[in-house]
């Protein structure tokens, strides 16, 4: 079975919500929607206090290159335009909506009927993706349309769809593959058309045999979509690792996937693209896995953007006793939530409640020189060396050791028997190197 070439770990899968079908989360009475929910320049707000908005209405416009539109996920009145606390505790510009009923904007098809025929051409599709504010749902929230504006002199050979879901606990992609396979694959077909490629490769890990079977059967009705089972190994879902696993091509250091003729998107993004292009529906809701070993009712929920995280937790039986960390995302790459009243955003794909015992860090002891971090690093880096440079504040040395190539998958930290905070130190190095590079560029 195919997989990536070096490193990787296999953490306990803990896919506890595999069998719970997607449930629609009730609309909250009051919601907070962040103006910018993507990576890049901030969007410009176009509504005012007191305005009535309908579900799907544009509220913030993308006016710069790397930027995405934001739409209202609710029907109601805007009561306040202010800042709101996001889950890290920092304040960001947001609008507060008093939710009334759920009236979709005209032109949006909110039915479940499947629209198969793709009427738009390549440029129109990209324009539509941009208009509907689609961002990468794999976690980084990078505006999707930018990936499809291929720079001159480059040519794409493959569209690669990430349906790996290699993070433990997460099951949102698994559920949509099982329940909405056709929508996903139409989405893939649309992206294929946008990119003008013959072939789309969908990578799925072998721990989801039923999803693979279901997708393969559905894919028979499509042309040029190949479902490829991959060996279960983390971080298969990382862009560069997935490209290698599926095509045996290696993205050079510091370059983008288009360098080797690939464009990578998540299966969830493909589904969002289907809704955007075929049904005119902007990205205002996503599938969220609420999970954790002690959670009373573990669920996969269809949640509108802007729902308070606390209300989702309450819906599933409240915070269990002895919860040590609430994490947005999976246990490997997710971020700890420090503010539970914060609303969800476009990319909140999971909320993980971990017990104190499960989530606390190991005691830090001296490095044993065992080399485990080196052998598991999927980028072939030497995390311990970068960490040592970081401890001694030698940022230029860290740069020479290719710290910037780190994909922050956390394998080194996961495997270190001495509990050394390797990833933390590499991230610090990356931050300093970024600063040094900006200074260099100015000179």
């Amino acid at each position, binding site marked *: 079975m195919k997989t990536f070439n070096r490193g990787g770990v296999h953490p306990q899968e803990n896919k506890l919500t595999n069998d719970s079908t997607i449930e629609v989360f009730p609309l909250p009475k009051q919601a907070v929607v962040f103006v910018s929910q993507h990576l890049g320049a901030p969007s410009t707000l176009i509504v005012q206090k007191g305005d009535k908005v309908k579900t799907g209405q544009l509220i913030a416009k993308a006016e710069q290159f790397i930027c995405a539109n934001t739409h209202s996920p609710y029907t109601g009145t805007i009561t306040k335009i202010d800042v709101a*606390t996001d889950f*890290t*505790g*920092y*304040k960001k510009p947001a609008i507060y909506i008093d939710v009334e009923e759920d009236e979709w904007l005209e032109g949006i098809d909110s039915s479940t009927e499947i629209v198969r025929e793709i009427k738009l051409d390549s440029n129109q599709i990209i324009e539509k993706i941009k208009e509907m504010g689609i961002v990468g749902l794999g976690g980084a929230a990078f505006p999707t349309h930018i990936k499809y504006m291929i720079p001159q002199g480059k040519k794409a050979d493959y569209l690669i769809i990430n349906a790996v879901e290699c993070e433990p606990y997460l099951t949102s992609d698994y559920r949509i593959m099982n329940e909405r396979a056709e929508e996903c694959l139409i989405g893939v077909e649309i992206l294929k058309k946008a990119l003008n490629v013959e072939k789309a490769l969908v990578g799925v890990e072998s721990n989801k045999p039923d999803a693979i079977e279901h997708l393969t059967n559905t894919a028979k009705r499509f042309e040029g979509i190949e479902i490829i089972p991959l060996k279960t190994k983390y971080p298969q879902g990382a862009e560069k690792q997935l490209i290698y696993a599926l095509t045996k091509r290696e993205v050079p250091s510091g370059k983008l996937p288009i360098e080797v003729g690939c464009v990578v998107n998540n299966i969830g993004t493909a589904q969002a693209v289907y809704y955007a292009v075929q049904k005119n529906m902007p990205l205002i809701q996503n599938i969220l896995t609420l999970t954790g070993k002690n959670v009373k009712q573990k669920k996969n929920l269809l949640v509108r953007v802007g729902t308070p995280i606390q209300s989702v937790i309450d819906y599933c039986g409240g915070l269990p006793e002895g919860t040590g960390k609430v994490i947005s995302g999976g246990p490997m790459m997710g*971020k*700890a939530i*420090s*503010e539970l009243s914060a609303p969800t955003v476009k990319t909140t794909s999971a909320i993980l409640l971990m017990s104190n015992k499960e989530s*606390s*860090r190991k005691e830090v002891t001296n490095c044993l020189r065992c080399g485990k971090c080196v052998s598991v690093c999927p980028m072939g880096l030497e995390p311990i060396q970068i960490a040592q440079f970081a401890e001694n*504040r030698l940022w230029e040395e860290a740069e020479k050791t290719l710290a910037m190539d780190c994909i922050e998958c956390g394998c080194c930290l996961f495997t270190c028997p001495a509990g050394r*905070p390797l990833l*933390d*130190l590499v*991230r*610090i190095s990356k*931050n*300093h190197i970024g600063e040094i590079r900006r200074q260099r560029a100015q000179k």
Partner: protein
Amino acid sequence: MSIIIYSILVLVLTAGIAAVILYFVAQKFKVIEDPRIDLIAEKLPGANCGGCGYTGCRALAETIVNASSLEGLRCPVGGDKTINDIAEILGLEVSASTPQIAVVRCNGGKLNTTAKVQYDGVQDCLYAHLNMSSEGGCPNGCLGLGNCVGVCAFDAIIIDKESGLPIVDEEKCVSCGACVKACPRKIIELRNKGIKNRRVFVSCVNTEKGGLAKKNCNVACIGCGKCEKVCEFDAIKIENNLAYIDFTKCKLCRKCVTECPTGAILEINFPPKKEKIAVEQAEAIQN
């Protein structure tokens, strides 16, 4: 016997030839260095802290020798004495400067904020700053993980265990500015040391609206503007819900300190107020 003589002769000859070659090579590749660089470098503290903005003491010495005036070139560590010595060597004029000190503009810490979450990552301010606002919820306040302590070459900063905030040792601080650069939240500032080391400053950098700031911290500046109004010397400005005292204009009258409703303005090294002593004495007598 002859072996010894020959050996000595060969060695002497080789040494002679080598000496001649070395002499010519040395002449050819001679580097003419201004002897004053060594003299100046000797006067500098040699800590290579980078406080002057150059990569070390020798780099500063080289720049000084090549410069026509000492304007903008000085060693914050050595202070006036060092720069006067250097000026003497070069025969240049130098104006006196006001001594400065690093000031930590946050008084939150463990005593004035309530921790809502616990941070368990690596003990590095930058890393914590990238991942969360702070344990107490203030997005601008001191994280207390000691990046400033780590970069101080003079052991002038320590983290106070009780409050979790950095304390600057007035004797040891040489105002090199390393901690100012190391703080990811720009909390530390270089301010004039002041007459008799007395200083008045706003010990807060929170730019949130008053209510939000006060919710997370008992001693936050809420940007109410009372200090701005009471100041007779136009030294206080409110910007982004935050007061800032311009130390070049401040006359240390301390009216703002009494006026501040949250106690965000601190006075340092002033003798205790007379009324306060009287009240305390009265209390003591009553007890």
